[in-house]
């Protein structure tokens, strides 16, 4: 954050000074123009700006701590890692972020409770709350990134330690290969003890140069510098890092499985939606068919009705037709 929104602080200070001294009329008018709400609400608005100012101060301090944590986490030295400090800082930053969340939620409730007279004032308060929330979101995103960087670094250091270290729990490669650099190095530990500060830089140099697996005989000289520093205490530290990693790995696997389940669920929903959309077309056809049926049946009923009225109104005609036919039959039989 290169800039800080201090208008709230400015308003707060202006209010405070105004309330403290006798204000001449011109200043009063000017202050009224600046904040067009009645004096009762001015007290509540300055309280709001005080709270918002405090929250933004806390956010900047948390951002500062986060910067320190980033610097610590980015260090790639092999042996001089400070897990205690990093853990403490992480814990403090987590607490800060939770506290800021609570404060912003309180601020939001507060603004909802206070009814602002002018539309601009309520817009302003909501804008301020939104700005604070977005700043906090940015801070927490960068915190998450820093944690990711830290876990990656820890994994890298663990891998590099594995290359140099022969530990019973981790033994996977051929023992002979791992034994030889250790044996060679153990032969000259006493000479190299004085060069430990150089060794740490050498170790970090290795870390920076060799990203992946290193053939065992290539950095032999630096290996011999690096290994004597690995006291039993640091072996135990490495087991500790292993333990931490195991816990973190467990968590990450669990979360990954949850994530894949959610993705699968999303796919299922998508399929469901597609199938229902396809069936919609079928349903439309059925609708059309039923409309046609209704139309036909109505028409047929009309015709039948017409026929019926025809028949019933035509009775006299029928009688007359019948009479003429009967007459014709009689004529024919009489002639025959």
């Amino acid at each position, binding site marked *: 954050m290169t800039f800080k929104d201090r208008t709230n602080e400015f308003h707060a200070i202006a209010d405070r000074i105004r309330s403290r001294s006798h204000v001449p009329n011109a200043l009063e008018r000017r202050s009224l123009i600046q904040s067009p709400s009645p004096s009762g609400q001015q007290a509540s608005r300055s309280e709001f700006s005080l709270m918002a100012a405090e929250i933004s101060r806390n956010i900047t301090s948390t951002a500062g701590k986060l910067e320190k944590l980033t610097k610590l986490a980015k260090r790639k030295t092999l042996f001089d890692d400070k897990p205690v400090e990093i853990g403490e800082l992480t814990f403090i930053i987590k607490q800060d972020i939770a506290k800021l969340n609570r404060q912003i939620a309180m601020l939001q409730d507060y603004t909802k409770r206070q009814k602002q007279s002018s539309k601009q004032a309520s817009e302003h308060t909501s804008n301020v709350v939104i700005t604070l929330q977005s700043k906090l979101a940015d801070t927490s995103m960068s915190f998450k990134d820093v944690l990711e960087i830290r876990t990656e670094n820890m994994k890298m250091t663990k891998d590099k330690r594995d290359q140099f270290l022969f530990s019973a729990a981790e033994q996977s490669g051929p023992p002979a290969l791992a034994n030889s650099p250790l044996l060679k190095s153990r032969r000259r530990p006493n000479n190299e003890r004085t060069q430990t500060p150089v060794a740490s830089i050498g170790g970090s140099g290795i870390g920076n140069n060799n990203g992946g697996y290193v053939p065992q005989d290539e950095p032999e000289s630096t290996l011999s510098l690096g290994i004597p520093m690995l006291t039993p205490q640091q072996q135990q530290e490495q087991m500790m890092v292993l333990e931490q990693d195991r816990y973190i790995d467990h968590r990450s696997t*669990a979360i990954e499985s*949850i994530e894949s*389940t959610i993705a699968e669920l999303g796919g299922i929903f998508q399929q469901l939606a597609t199938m229902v959309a396809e069936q919609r077309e079928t349903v439309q056809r059925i609708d059309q068919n039923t409309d046609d049926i209704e139309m036909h049946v109505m028409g047929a009923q009309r015709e039948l009705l017409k026929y019926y009225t025809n028949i019933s109104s035509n009775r006299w005609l029928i009688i007359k037709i019948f009479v003429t036919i009967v007459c014709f039959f009689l004529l024919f039989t009489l002639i025959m």
Partner: protein
Amino acid sequence: MKIFGILVLKKDGDKAQIIASHYDLSSFGYFQRGSVQEFMNFSSVTIGERTPPGTRQSVEGENNVAHVYSHPQGIVGVVMSDKDYPSRVAFSLLNRVTDEFLVKYPNATRPVNYTELEGYVVRYQDPKEADPLMKVQNELDETTEIMRQTIDSVLKRGEKLDSLVDRSEALSSQSKMFYKTAKKTNACCVVM
């Protein structure tokens, strides 16, 4: 998967001291409970003294495991459980217990009566229900099962809709014939 006990220790320098604990020893015989509790106290103190702050450890015994988390602010939380209990759940429980303990008793040096421990022991006996991650996973699995059943019923619905279409088409043509016949009867040969 059971929890046998949760302990909170205060650590200054290299010495650890138990300041809160709760046990659930119902699975042990009545006469064993005392010795088991003593053993737990002793081993948790020993392990707590040997855990550097800010780290987690799991120590396995013959048929139980001690999960240890050493909080940077000098509090060590220990969970004694059997081997099947997932370590992740135990460590998240320890996180919560230590954080809340610090909030409630920030400067405890003598044993205090921390009543929430009992609630935690009871609740976390079944890790599937207590741990949010596992609960979410469970619910997601149930939801996918329900969704699969839904898709099956949607398929059946599709089949029924297809048969409906055929029948409505047949009905439509029949009604058309009906209409035509009626019209024909009306129009031609005004016989009667």
